[in-house]
């Protein structure tokens, strides 16, 4: 009998070209996604006079610097230069480019799955840490730095040590108003931002199986915030139904062959993981961050901790975070006034996220200003078809074009110094949304609730009598 193998084992061996004596493997890369930020890597390639080894497996997306308004005339010359540089590199190396006006444009981690470029069984790299998102399909997907991007461009391979395996099982089911974002913030708060360092996480259990592809992507996306290299969910019928007939997905006999191979990917019964963690879906409440690290998160019903009562190793960080966030310890999270809201990003900018927010906002007015940036042009079109855009604009929020936008502020969409933002993004680091900006991470439904009340609010009472 052969040893039971994990999803990670199967994906790893399917891509391993060779293994060095020091234990590092050379892996074949099936998809390589690049964006404006990849300019350093293209520069390295140019310095060697090298070509892209597999242009047919390399796809370029304009997202990090994509203006969310007035795309026809880009006001900021720096933004325009970054986008032009990507255009030139894509043209020179004959790469498919999802340019600003392309109906397929969007955030790289939204576009890949939506176009069917992301499939189970693939190895996917991108010079962006949230590449872990694609693992939701049962793919080996991880972010890399510029030197490695140049390496993948030049060789279509990557050197990598096999990570440890970790399984996070979420039993039971999630209550109304509780989403994949809450599962993620929950386990990161519990294990810490280094809790999964050096690990590949496989998410399992009934509450994970019950998630849509959108929810699974949110969960895998945030793996990196707990220190993991990548996150994965084994492919199943939900995965296949999502992918069928997507533009770049296999067709006909290739699709059938894919289905057959993908069915063998899930971890075998009895496969062993280096680390196992179990959560109970029913215990998870809508969760919000109060500090400047994703691990500084609590159920919205809680109060901000007193740093003196925390693990001494975390007390100083908590004090510094509360100082930066201008919040007192002991204060209830509910009722903290926010200045604005942001809905979007590769974490929570998909159609289901917009639907969840719209379910809260329908027929209500936002008390604070805010912006909704769909994760892709397709998500935008779909939302408009469903009339979600009107719900947002009638609530008083701005409905803008897709891109990374206020998740990272590279395109100029910033939170002003000292302002507090309820945000559906992934990082509440100091200054992430702009110098001096104060970010509270939460689910899209919770962002909508914060918009309606102008404060951090438990979304659950606002959902009474509504389809969530």
């Amino acid at each position, binding site marked *: 009998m052969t040893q039971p193998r994990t999803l990670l084992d199967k994906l790893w061996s399917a891509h391993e070209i060779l293994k060095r004596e020091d234990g590092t493997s050379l892996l074949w890369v099936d998809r390589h996604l690049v964006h404006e930020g990849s300019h350093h890597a293209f520069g390295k390639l140019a310095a060697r006079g*090298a070509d892209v080894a597999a242009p047919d497996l390399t796809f370029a997306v304009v997202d990090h610097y994509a203006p969310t308004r007035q795309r026809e005339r880009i006001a900021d010359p720096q933004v325009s230069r970054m986008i032009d540089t990507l255009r030139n590199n894509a043209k020179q190396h*004959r790469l498919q480019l999802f340019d600003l006006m*392309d109906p397929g444009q969007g955030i790289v981690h939204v576009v890949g799955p939506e176009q069917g470029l992301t499939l189970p069984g693939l190895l996917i790299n991108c010079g962006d840490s949230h590449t872990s998102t694609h693992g939701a399909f049962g793919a080996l997907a991880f972010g890399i*730095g*510029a*030197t490695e991007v140049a390496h993948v461009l030049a060789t279509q391979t990557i050197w990598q040590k096999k990570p440890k395996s970790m399984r996070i099982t979420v039993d039971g089911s999630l209550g109304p108003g509780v989403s994949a974002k809450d599962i993620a913030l929950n386990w990161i708060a519990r294990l810490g931002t280094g809790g999964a360092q050096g690990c590949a996480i496989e998410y399992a259990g009934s509450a994970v199986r019950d998630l849509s592809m959108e929810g699974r992507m949110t969960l895998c996306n945030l793996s990196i915030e707990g220190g993991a290299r990548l996150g994965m969910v084994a492919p199943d019928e939900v995965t296949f139904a999502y992918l069928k007939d997507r533009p770049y997905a296999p067709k006909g006999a290739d699709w059938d062959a894919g289905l057959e191979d993908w069915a063998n990917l899930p971890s075998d019964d009895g496969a062993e993981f280096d680390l196992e963690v179990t959560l109970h879906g029913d215990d998870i409440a809508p969760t919000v961050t109060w500090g400047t690290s994703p691990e500084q998160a609590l159920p919205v019903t809680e109060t901000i901790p007193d740093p003196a009562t925390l693990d001494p190793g975390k007390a100083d960080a908590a004090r510094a975070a509360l100082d930066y966030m201008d919040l007192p310890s002991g204060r209830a999270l509910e009722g903290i006034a926010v200045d604005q809201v942001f809905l979007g990003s590769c974490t929570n900018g998909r159609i289901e996220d917009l639907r969840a927010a719209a379910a809260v906002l329908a027929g209500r007015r936002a008390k604070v200003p805010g912006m909704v940036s769909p994760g892709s042009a397709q998500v935008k079109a779909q939302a408009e078809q469903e009339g979600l855009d009107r719900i947002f604009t009638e609530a008083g929020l701005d409905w803008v074009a897709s891109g990374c936008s206020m998740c990272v502020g*590279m395109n100029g969409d910033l939170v002003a110094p000292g302002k507090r933002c309820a945000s559906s993004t992934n990082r509440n680091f100091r200054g992430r949304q702009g110098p001096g900006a104060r970010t509270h991470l939460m689910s899209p439904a919770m962002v909508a609730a914060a918009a309606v009340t102008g404060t951090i609010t438990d979304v659950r009472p606002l959902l009474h009598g509504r389809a969530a």
Partner: protein
Amino acid sequence: MAGWRTHAGRAITLPHDNIDTDQLIPARFMSAPRSEGYGKFLLHDLRHDADGAEVPDFPLNRHDDATILVAGRNFGSGSSREAAVYALVDAGITTVIAPSFGDIFASNAVNNGLLPARLSERQVKQLMMHLGDQSGAARIDIDAKELRIGDHSFAFELDDGWQTKLINGWDDIDLTLAHRDQIHSFRDQRLKTSRWAWPTAQDQEPPGTRAQ
């Protein structure tokens, strides 16, 4: 990238956990070409106040001769931006000592000749106590995986593959291309057994012309 084995320099402490890549280099500086030098961006928003003036007691402002940083756990967590490493390297930093590092940061560091040396939480505390807010003469030996500072010596942890790479200053691309034949036969085999892994061609337009 040139390799190195030993370094004698000055160590200072940055006594914080979770110094993430957004702190190491705020996103707004990342469109600059590398040739401009990234050293001035290092920890920019911690080193400067809201008006752009230097914060006088920030460790890096007090000691502009520092080449070795001693920091708290999870150094370099966050984004994959290699610019965080460029900022450190261009500011003259050769080594960061911490109990743990962000995974992508650490491999980016090694790719740029920056040593991410791991010591235990306790040893890092001890070092921080020893240095206080002063800078101290220190010596790094990559072969021996050893850090000497004053009378103390510490054995740091470093992956063997990374040790070799730092010493040789290898460019991975050249190493990899030596395996070209193996890569090609792997690809051919994969194409034969897993055709589904190649993207379906979209249209007859040549690549790169889509809606530009």
